[in-house]
């Protein structure tokens, strides 16, 4: 780790750059074991069908095939987060196009593909539910008719195809709305979209006796381990999940994803088995896409801009299974409130099953879409009030002492400062050509408290090994840890090696999700470092015969404060090999509020240490074609104290680029039967580096209380939250009309400019 310290800003240069750029780095797909066979899945032939019969005879007979398995060969176990509604392979019913019917392992990829095609599946097609709003109709076919028999979280409030109904309630929104000076109503709709990590996933499994080692491109190795143990009915101790270099995730590699199927194939084949996904499978088979949402907002305000009431109704597309996304509806409901002061609130959300790919956590799940709708709604309110949109936000954003949507009381928050800074960076009041405009959007995202644990061993030569359950996703968050530890112990970051991404080495960690690595894993690592520090001070106190209160670790030694000549080298203290610390730290508590009136409480009713964001976008619109170029995005964020500036800036840069894609080009298109029409990078249009705008980043650094280490909050997810909303508001200023369908593709913008509702 190279540490650069310029003008008080500490940055850590990631050590993985060279191996990635030169191609030396090993990803899961690069691994090969002796005797390894290749896996291929057979997918559903229809997005909703009853299975009459699966015949694997011909596939098994094909020379070179070493295993064919279906759900019949596995324990009858359903898995899932808040609802356990899915089996590893389809049982009885197929519910989306990427449902796995069977798995094949063969000596070559070609034979595996041929065998998968030879599996005969006799189906009875069922009516397909693709429209997640129509899924709520009383006569809609049920995706899970036996929902009541599933294991589930008791707070899931279900009805028909609605897997979770949630409300956020404060005061009496109906009464207040009736008294408001101005009432504005809006409807917005977002398509589903995808995380699209550059590395399609790969899984390699090898058994030794009753124990299996699984190399997987996962963001959450411990969740994968738990899922394998549960679905194959073996102890977690017998499952070791190792993550080689991970080629991105963005949430799409959260949750249990194919580790268990590949492990089951390897067991049946009595050989190591490797699965490598094609790009198309990475689109269609994973159970983690960004959900489609239909949003209706209604806000009542006084002429001075203060908001007296907010009503909102959100309908979200869950897809066919719960996965880890059972919380999506409630999270969306909080984003329909936003970081604003609103006197009375009634927001309800419906999370509905459909015959589509399951939705799950993709970078700040639900927030970018809901924020895109809400922030346009706020600009519509400003217009109705005859007020500048920035002025309306100045008057309504939360501040210290303000009450949240469930009456949590906020500590000092920097959202208003982010607004002023973003507006300043973009040059909000500039004269622009008539085809250009600036739009502004704010947003928020909670910190996710979770357990974590770390060990730090000092070795005989004075070097150290940090053992953590943290998962690196490419952000550099884990790679920065040696610098924090070195700082605590008066050592050099290069004194430390990291042992991580191996569930056999460290204890449980939530993984690379929820912007939690520095927040929780970092806390645990610092606690372990504090333990090592204590042990070093004790040992040095005995060695130097000095009171330990008079000692400090510095420059590789423990020395007497004020007398640096009286010291002992840390290498000498660790020579006996007895210095080893551990730590977890205290998990921050989620704030309390008045949540008694809320239905479907799943844990997001209040926001711990909210990360707060304003982004301003400068765009150029070609109204004749609808083509938009985003010229600049100014991003001002309050993520508390920033511990690694270059890493944090990188998160914003990447998040904004993803946000631009979400805004203007990224959307999964479906045919009438719920099959994806663009499951490839030719027609699922990511933003290219040539399309990336100039991005200016600044941080409002207010030390956060009761949050992450050293006054920090999370960083990774918020950058994508407000980007699309800012771009939308800028587009609306150019067009004089709004684009109400996300992504705001050229055709939709063109249609809106023609007076057609996009």
């Amino acid at each position, binding site marked *: 780790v190279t540490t650069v310290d310029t003008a008080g800003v500490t940055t850590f240069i990631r050590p993985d750059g060279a191996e990635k750029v030169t191609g030396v780095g090993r990803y899961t797909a690069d691994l090969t074991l002796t005797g390894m066979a290749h896996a291929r899945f057979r997918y559903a032939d229809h997005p909703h069908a009853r299975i009459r019969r699966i015949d694997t005879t011909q596939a098994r007979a094909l020379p070179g095939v070493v295993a064919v398995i279906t759900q019949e060969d596995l324990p009858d176990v359903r898995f899932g987060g808040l609802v356990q509604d899915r089996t590893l392979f389809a049982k009885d019913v197929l519910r989306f196009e990427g449902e796995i019917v069977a798995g094949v392992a063969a000596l070559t990829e070609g034979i595996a593909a041929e065998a998968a095609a030879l599996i005969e599946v006799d189906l009875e097609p069922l009516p397909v539910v693709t429209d997640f709003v129509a899924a709520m109709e009383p006569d809609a076919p049920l995706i899970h008719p036996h929902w009541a028999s599933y294991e589930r979280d008791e707070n899931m409030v279900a009805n028909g195809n609605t897997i979770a109904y949630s409300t956020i309630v404060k005061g009496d929104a109906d009464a207040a709305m009736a008294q408001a000076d101005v009432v504005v109503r809006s409807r917005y709709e977002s398509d589903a979209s995808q995380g699209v990590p550059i590395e399609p996933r790969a899984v390699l499994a090898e058994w030794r006796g009753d124990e299996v080692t699984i190399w997987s491109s996962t963001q959450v190795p411990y969740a994968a381990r738990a899922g394998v143990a549960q679905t194959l009915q073996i102890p977690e101790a017998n499952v070791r999940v190792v993550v080689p270099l991970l080629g991105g995730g963005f949430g799409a590699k959260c949750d249990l994803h194919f580790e268990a199927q590949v492990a089951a194939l390897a067991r049946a084949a009595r050989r190591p088995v490797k699965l490598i996904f094609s790009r198309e499978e990475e689109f269609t088979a994973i159970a983690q896409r960004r959900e489609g949402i239909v949003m209706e907002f209604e806000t009542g305000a006084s002429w001075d801009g203060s908001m007296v009431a907010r009503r909102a109704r959100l309908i979200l597309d869950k897809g066919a299974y719960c996965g880890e996304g059972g919380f999506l509806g409630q999270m969306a409901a909080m984003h329909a409130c936003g970081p604003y002061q609103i006197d009375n609130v009634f927001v309800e959300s419906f999370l509905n099953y459909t015959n589509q790919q399951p939705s799950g956590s993709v970078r700040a799940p639900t927030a970018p879409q809901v924020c895109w709708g809400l922030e346009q709604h706020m600009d519509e309110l400003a217009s109705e009030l005859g007020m500048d949109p920035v002025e309306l936000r100045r008057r309504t954003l939360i501040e210290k002492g303000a009450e949240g949507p469930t009456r949590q009381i906020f500590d000092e928050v920097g959202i208003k400062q982010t607004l002023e800074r973003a507006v300043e960076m973009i040059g909000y009041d500039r004269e622009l*050509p*008539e*085809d250009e405009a600036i739009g502004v959007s704010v947003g928020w995202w909670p910190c996710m408290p979770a357990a974590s644990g770390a060990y730090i061993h000092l070795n005989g030569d004075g070097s150290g090994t940090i053992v953590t359950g943290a998962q690196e996703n490419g952000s550099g968050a884990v790679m920065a840890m040696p610098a924090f530890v070195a700082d605590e112990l008066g050592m050099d970051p290069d004194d430390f090696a990291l042992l991580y991404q191996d569930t056999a080495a460290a204890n449980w960690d939530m993984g690379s999700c929820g912007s939690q690595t520095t927040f929780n894993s970092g806390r645990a690592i610092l606690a372990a470092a504090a333990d090592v520090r204590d042990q070093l001070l004790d040992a040095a106190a005995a060695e130097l015969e000095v009171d330990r209160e008079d000692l400090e670790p510095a420059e590789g030694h423990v020395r007497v404060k004020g007398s640096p000549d009286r010291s002992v080298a840390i290498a000498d203290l660790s020579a006996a090999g007895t210095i080893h610390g551990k730590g977890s730290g205290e998990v921050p508590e989620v704030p309390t509020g008045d949540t008694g009136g809320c239905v479907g409480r799943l844990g997001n009713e209040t926001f711990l240490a909210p990360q707060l964001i304003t982004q301003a976008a400068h765009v*150029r619109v*070609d*109204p*004749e*074609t609808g*083509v938009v*170029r985003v010229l600049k995005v100014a991003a001002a964020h309050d993520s508390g104290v920033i511990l690694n500036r270059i890493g944090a800036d990188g998160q914003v840069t990447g998040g904004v680029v993803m946000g631009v894609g979400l805004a203007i*080009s990224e959307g999964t*298109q479906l045919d009438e039967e719920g099959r994806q*029409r*663009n499951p*490839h990078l*030719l*027609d699922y*249009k990511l*933003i*290219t*580096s*040539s*399309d990336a705008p100039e991005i200016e980043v600044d941080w409002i650094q207010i030390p956060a209380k009761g949050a992450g280490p050293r006054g920090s909050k999370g960083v990774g997810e918020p950058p994508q939250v407000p980007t699309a909303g800012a771009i939308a508001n800028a587009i609306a200023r150019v067009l004089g009309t709004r684009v109400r369908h996300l992504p705001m*593709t*050229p*055709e939709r913008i*063109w*249609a809106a400019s023609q007076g057609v509702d996009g």
Partner: protein
Amino acid sequence: LTPSFTSAVSLEDALAALGSGARPVAGGTDLVVGARQGKASLPDAIVAIDRIESLEGILAVDGGLRLGPLATHEEIVASDAIRERFTALADASAIVGSHATRAHGTIGGNVMNASPAMDTGGPLLSFEATAILRSVSGGERAVPLAELWTGPGATIADSRELLVGIDVPGPEPMTGSAYVRLEYRRQMEIAVVGATAVVTLDGGSVADARVAITALAPTIRRIPEAEAALTGSAGGDDAIAAAAGAAAAGSSPIADVRGSAEYRVAMAEVITRRAIVAALARARGEHVPVPASAAPHRPTRGADA
């Protein structure tokens, strides 16, 4: 047929391989991507022609051009002769795919792949280029591109013929040309709507005009009504609008994941207008940077502005 891959170093070797059933590959940017997408599996026998020197190069011949089929898009964009006199072709090659596609993809592969969305097709058709096909039996024939393409992915060339050159006659003096494509992104795009205009001025009026549309019909096609609307006119707004309207009327686009038919028809008019405006500007000696698609299009900027 046994799956095979051979690499020819001479035209004779390549033709011999074709004679025994192999299919030629140059840059591979369509063949390999198509196979991975499952559009068409790779041929059982492939002969690589990328090392045949006689198929390389961009030659100035009798005021016109002889394009070697192995000329890459990158080489075409870099050619001064093409940028100055066949500017629409430079516009097109400059926006094919990505940097990597342009470095590997060849004009010959582009022409013989016969995609109705190919960017270079409109310019070549408008410049009235001719494909030179050499047969395994030794014969050679010259086929105008208008006759070469018979449908999406289909040409009249038979499997025993190899494209050995593309002849492009030189334009008259005072000719300007442009290819404009609707671009959702700045890189990695495939034509959803494209238009080519080649105009020759005589004093203040248009002596000759050629207009072609791309990705708007089963093959790239010229629009005689659009050409007629411009020819003899002063190249003013009305003539341009009439020509652009004719291009829209002459399009019969599909509706797919990239756009509705309605949007494509509307864009046919806009993009054709922009191509004509850029071609006229170049014919008058004004500077319009390559590629013409990259210029921001201000709503206030009309034909004579």
